[in-house]
Every structure is written in structure tokens, then in C-alpha cells.
């Protein structure tokens, strides 16, 4: 098995786990963790793509940038989750479904 193949399997695995988590998780923190898993899959994909196209440097530099940007998103997400917990005393996304229809 080549490195690339392993990487592809890793990507698919991470994406699968992330999506699964997003679809079934009810706890807000778990949702954000699942989102992070999804992003890690994308990171691995970028590095793997760099490897496949022979431009590993490009792939890696993109990945570093993505990590930076995505940390900000994760921080905001967690900050909002914190506020939710503080104001509503719950982290269950079922309780976060007042806006519908």
C-alpha cells in the first residue's frame, strides 16, 4: 500500500466519522468536535493532494493556513457554545431548535 493510498483511506475515514458525528450528535460540543474531525480530513486531503501532484510544499502550506483559519472558527464556535450553556443551561441541540418552519 502506498502512502497515498493510506492517506486517501484516512481522508475518507475522517470525513465519514465527522459527517456521522454531525448527523447524530446531540451535544453541541460533540458537534464542534465532529466538525473538527471533518476539517482534519480535509487537511489530510490537501497534504495528500500535494503528494499526488508532486507539489508537497504547496499542499503543506495550504494545510498550515487552513489550520490557522479553522482554529478561529473553532474558537468562535466554542465561544458561542459557552454562551448557550450559560444562558440556557443546556448543550442539547434539540433545545436549540426554536427557530423552525
Amino acid at each position: 500500500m502506498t502512502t497515498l493510498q493510506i492517506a486517501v483511506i484516512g481522508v475518507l475515514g475522517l470525513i465519514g466519522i465527522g459527517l456521522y458525528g454531525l448527523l447524530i450528535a446531540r451535544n453541541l460540543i460533540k458537534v464542534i468536535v465532529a466538525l473538527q474531525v471533518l476539517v482534519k480530513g480535509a487537511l489530510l486531503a490537501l497534504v495528500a493532494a500535494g503528494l499526488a501532484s508532486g507539489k508537497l510544499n504547496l499542499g503543506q502550506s495550504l494545510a498550515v493556513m487552513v489550520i490557522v483559519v479553522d482554529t478561529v472558527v473553532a474558537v468562535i464556535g466554542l465561544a458561542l457554545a459557552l454562551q448557550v450553556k450559560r444562558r440556557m443551561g443546556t448543550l442539547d441541540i434539540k433545545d436549540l431548535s426554536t427557530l423552525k418552519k
Partner: protein
Amino acid sequence: MSTEQFALDNVLLWLIGLPLVAAPLVYFAGRLFNLGRWAALGVIGLTWIPFVIAAQQVGTGSISLVVEGMTLRMDGISLVLAAIALSLGTLVVVYSNRYVAHEENEDKYYPMLVALIGVITGLGCATDLFNLWVWFEAMAISSYLLVAFYRDQPASLEAGLKYLVQSAVGSVLVLLGMALVLALTGTMNLAEIRAVAGQPATPGLPLLAAGALFVIGFGVKAALVPMHTWLPDAHSQAPSGISAMLSGVVIEAGLIALLRAVASLAGVTLSWGVLLMGFGALNMLAGNLLALRQKHVKRMLAFSSLSHMGYMLLGLGIAVYVGQSAAAAGSFFHLINHGLMKGLAFLAAGALLYVLFIKTGDHHSPLTISDLGGAARKYPIVALTLSIAALGLGGLPPFAGFMSKWQIFVAGFETQNIVIDLLVIFAALNSVLSLAYYAPIVNAVYRQEPSEAVTRGQALSWTMSLPLILLAVAIVILGLWPSLLAWLTGPAGTALVKAFGG
């Protein structure tokens, strides 16, 4: 190419850089001296100078800025986006003067808004897929906090979180698409991708998948059905100025990011145009039906954004499918008009929300249709401008929305393709359907008996009425003289068709 270098006399640098650099200053001005609103107004006012110069330089071509090997290029499409972001941004800053005054997060509101304008301008100018993604994420980040502005409101937090999670999923899909493109073409530059992707030697199917990932990933932000579910929540819970920005600029920026990314894969398949038209039809119908039974004004307006996105998609799809720039120009015209009309609608509805509820300390109550009752007597300007916005959105002449829809429709019929003709008729029927929820707004504001909320309503400040009047006047003028913006929409249409290789 030698002229495209980093230099302080490059107008693009100022156009994009000024708001971005000034945003922290606006924050400090607000934090330390409570002058955030004026600082923001000053910065945006100054940004108009490079914009006007850039608009003249772009003409029918483009101007570029190279920073450390990263190229930003402003063409007709970027100019349209910058124009609407800047126009609406200016008015929203004026409008928000009172709206967010004394709110807990006021000091963070203005810098975020200023940064949002700079970021959107930058997004329009990206020439590199990764660069596009970074701008896109920056836009998302600056809007998350604006959506969840009322941090003590559970509904506001809920809307912000949903927006964040869905946007993030979309952005991951875009990253995956980028990885596929990188793996197969070895580059991130849009023009180079296009050159490689068109060659027969390049494997088509993975690139097709990458295109699908772009359509869906950016489509979350552009509110394509069925990825639209964040939109009604975010648009209705955000402060009204931000609702206007989201609906009038941010989702359109998502659409333009989508177009830029997909255009680089134009050579892979001919079906992009069909796909866009399909989403257009779906968005129109779903948006109208979902809006039809809404009782909350801002939520109804949010759903109607879906259907307007549908009109733009239809025109763009026609343009991409037959390689005809008139339909794309019509869509960009509609993009601008929708920004003005929906911006006005949200601002006017927000003005009522503010004077009827927020000003009395009630942050919970939504503005319902029945609350609008009899608003005309007490708030004649808001009533008139809200009616103009609603009728314009419904596509009635002599307002701007009619003319841009007409342009899309004519361009569609000019193709003499029977399926496109039928789609256009479908779009026209959808406009009629939309009247069924726009018209009651007009009926409600002109009732004689004021609703309970209106009786208790507070006075309206001129900083809120002024943007409403300006937008209403613009809508009427554009409706009477539609070719006034042809200098802006024409080159944008041509640029789009060129990007797709027509």
C-alpha cells in the same frame, strides 16, 4: 505583466486594504472614545475614493495587484460585488447608528462590518482557488459574530451556531474539492486550472466531483436549496442592518465564489449551466412556497431571498449554457437590485422592529405582519419605503426589480430554446406567486386601525429614515432608467462568459 507590481499607487491595494487595516482602529475608536460609528463611517467614506478610481480604471478590462506572488485581479464581476458591498455598507453604518447604540457589543459591531466590506471586495478579486477560500472563510468569520450579535438572546445564539456549523461543513467540502483539483492539476491558480482541466488527458470524473463539491460547498453560503436551512434563522435573528448585508451582499458573494471556482472547471463538462438553471428553478419555487405562509416579516423576507437567488441563478445558468453575456448582465443587474431592494426591505422592517420593540427594551418579540398594521399613519416614510421594497421584490414596475427580471427573461427568450423559454415562464409565474406574500405587507401598513404595537411605538430617528429614502429613490430611478447601470453589469456579464470560455 511587469506593471502589475506591489506599489502604493495601486488603487486595488487601497480599496481592499483600507477597510481591513482600519477595522482595528475602528474598534479602538469605539472602545476608547465611543466613536466607533463615526470612525466606521469615515473609513467607508474614504474607501469610496479608491473605488471610484478603480471603477474608472477597470472599464471593460481589469486591474491587478500582486502581493508576494499572490495576484488579486479586479474585473467587472469584482466591481459589481464591491459596488453593492460598499453602497449597502455605507447605508447600513448610517442606519445602525441608533439601532445598535447602547447594545453590549456595539464596539465590536462596526469593526466587523468594516472588515466584512473589505473582505468581500477581496473575495471578488481572488484569482487563486486557495486565496478564494481564505477570503471566503474570512467573510464567514466576520459575519458569524455579527449574526450572533445579541449574545444574551438564545435565538440569536442558535441562529449563529447553525450558521457557523453549516458554513463550516460547506467550507470543508470546498477544501476537499480543492484537494481533488490540486491532486489532478498540480496548481491552485484558477487560470492554470482551466488550462489543464480542459485538456482531454486530464481525468474528467474526479474534476467533476470537485466541481460538485464547489457547487455544494459555496452553495451553502449562496443559499441553494436544500443547503439553505441556515438562512432564515440567521437573517431573521441578526440585527436588521446585518440582515440587509447578509441578504444583499454575503449570499451573493457566495454565489460569485461559486462561479469563480466552477468556471475554472468549465472545460470538464457542459452541464454547469444546466445545473445552475436547475438550482435556479428549485430556489424560486421553494423560496416562494416557504415564504408564503410566514407571519414574521423578517423571516418571510429571508425566504424570499431564496427565490431571488433563483432568478440570478437562472440568468447565470442561461449565460453559461449558451455563452451569451446578456443574461449574465441581467443577473448581475438583479444582484445589485436585489441588494438594494432586499436591503431596503430589511432596513425598513428593522426600523419598525426597532421603534416598536427594541427601543422599548423588548429584544424577544419578532415583527409580525399584524404588527405592521396602520404603521403608515405614524411612520409614513417607513411604510412607503417598505411598500416600494415589497412591490419591487414582487417584480412590479416601475421598480428596479422588474427591469432586471425583464432583462433576464428577454435574454432567455433570445436563445430561442424551448426549455429555457419554459423556465422563463416558470420564473414569471413564480413572480406572480410571490405577490401573494408581498402584497399583504402593503395592505397591512396602510390599514387605518393601528396595531397595538404601533400605538406604543417610539419616535424614529432621521439616521434610520435617511438610508431608507436613498434606497427607495435608487430603486425607482433604476426602474425608470435601467440602462443607468449598464456600465457596471455589462462588463460583468462579459467577464463571466469569458471565464466560462464562451
